[in-house]
């Protein structure tokens, strides 16, 4: 198992007396979908933010594709192919869906110091952006303002923006949060099509999503990873059942 795409060692983050991330060793293999589950307040989002670069760990290290990225800010990590989606939809509400995705394409097409040519007529940005919208099934909504999309569509757009940066690793923070059952089923099916093609870290509450998508699951409780394994192993783990699954089911 030497083809690790992402690894954290002794990752530690405290807010005052609260230890949000407690000496976490976490590995993501190239190509796998690795879910992180845990009860509310377990520190999942805090952990994800350290992976994406929005938060700095107090101690410990993060390596991505063999390179230490612990000190890199999030925009530099994005450039290296590490992209995240947000639990609470984070899009450019006053831009159209297509503009949103085109910006993500543009962000990875060299610097943006072009002052003259109209970016909205730039086929080298618009065409790949349209392809990504098609991929997530939003092509008919391309020219709608993002603010006017339905919640489910905004979640799709969120994923589209992650895809548009052509990431090697996608960090997805509760992609089906707040979706209706049929919407979330479609999102799960879509994410399943990415399996193998993209490496994914999936933080999710929805157990249907987790158990149908994940190759491996890590269980985070009070900032510690108490178990990592295949879905079957996690289901059978008595410690996990006690700490987490037992509470929910």
């Amino acid at each position, binding site marked *: 198992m030497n083809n690790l795409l992402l690894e954290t060692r002794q990752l530690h983050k405290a807010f005052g007396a609260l230890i949000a991330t407690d000496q976490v060793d976490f590995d993501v293999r190239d190509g796998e979908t690795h879910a992180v589950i845990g009860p509310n307040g377990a520190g999942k989002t805090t952990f994800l933010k350290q992976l994406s670069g929005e938060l700095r760990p107090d101690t410990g290290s993060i390596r991505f594709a063999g390179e230490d990225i612990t000190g890199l800010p999030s*925009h530099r990590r994005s450039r290296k192919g590490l992209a995240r989606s947000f639990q609470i939809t984070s899009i*450019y509400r006053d831009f159209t869906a297509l503009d949103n995705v085109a910006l993500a394409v543009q962000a990875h097409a060299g610097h943006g110091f072009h002052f003259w040519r109209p970016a909205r007529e730039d086929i080298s940005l618009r065409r790949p952006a349209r392809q990504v919208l098609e991929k997530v099934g939003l092509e008919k909504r391309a020219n709608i303002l993002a603010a006017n999309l339905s919640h489910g569509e905004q979640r799709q757009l969120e994923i589209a*923006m992650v895809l548009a940066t052509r990431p090697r690793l996608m960090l997805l923070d509760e992609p089906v949060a707040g979706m209706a059952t049929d919407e979330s089923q479609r999102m799960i099916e879509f994410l399943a099509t990415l399996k193998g093609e993209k490496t994914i870290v999936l933080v999710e509450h929805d157990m249907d999503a987790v158990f149908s998508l994940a190759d491996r699951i890590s269980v985070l409780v009070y900032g510690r990873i108490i178990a990592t394994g295949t879905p079957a192993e996690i289901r059978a783990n008595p410690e996990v059942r006690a700490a987490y699954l037992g509470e929910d089911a």
Partner: protein
Amino acid sequence: MALSPRTWILLALLLLLAAVPPAAAYFGQPFYLDLLRRVMIFAIAAISLNLILGYGGMVSFGHAAYLGIGAYAVGVLAHYGIHNGWLQWGLAIGASALVALAIGAISVRTSGIYFIMITLAFTQMLYYLGISIEEYGGDDGMRLNVRSQFSGLIDLNDPTEFYYLVLAILALFLYLSRRLVESRFGLVLQAARSNEVRSRAIGLSPYPYRLAAFVISGALCGLAGALLVNHTAYLTPEFMNWTRSGELMFMVILGGIATTSGPLLGAAALLLLEDVLQGWSVLPKWVHEHWQLYLGVILVLVVLFAKRGLAGFLPGKNE
């Protein structure tokens, strides 16, 4: 390329402005030439402010600084006998850009109320600097005895020629700002205003783009300052007073934030209203005596009932 309804309206407005000199001459009212030239110069300054305030979401409360630097660049060179306009205006733009780079490098890292206060503080510093330099007239300022000279190409002492030069610069600035906000650079700038966290997540650090916009905006406003001092033929630190920064902000907001035509509409509305309330003899005396009060009431009403500014009344989409 098909032009939008708003672009047509803007073109019509510019044509109307182009018709003012012959009309003023015909009716024997040269005063209007002066008034509208002033309107256009402030519109140019407001366009520059709109780039950062409107499209960049950076509420600069110190934009009068660049008006002042542009004016001082012309006035100080003239004071030492250098009347070459290319040199004077070049210095106006260059010095404004440099000062904007220095102020921006510090202030653009902040946001919200801190940004407002830092830009205000820097501008007040420059204002007091202007007051303290006796050589250039201190707080009285000094006359600009000779207007900028352009080797016989254009004569700023001719009101009509000067008027058309300002109009041409205004038209150019409207076009430039439109191109800029629609470019890749412009979209990155607007994206950072819309959602900074998202920008970082897709790999865009807003800082260099915001700083570049801040410098461009300052440089453009420096040219407005050079125009203004030639217009008034008088140089005073009052150009940099914070109330002047406030007026520029008001023009942008009144006209319609982040719209192409907004700065022009805002500058025209504010300055023309001022003139009407102060001077029109058909209005009763009690209006003239307390014109600021009535101006204030009108402005409050416009802001309350036209949340998207005067440009919001125009047909077509918000652009």
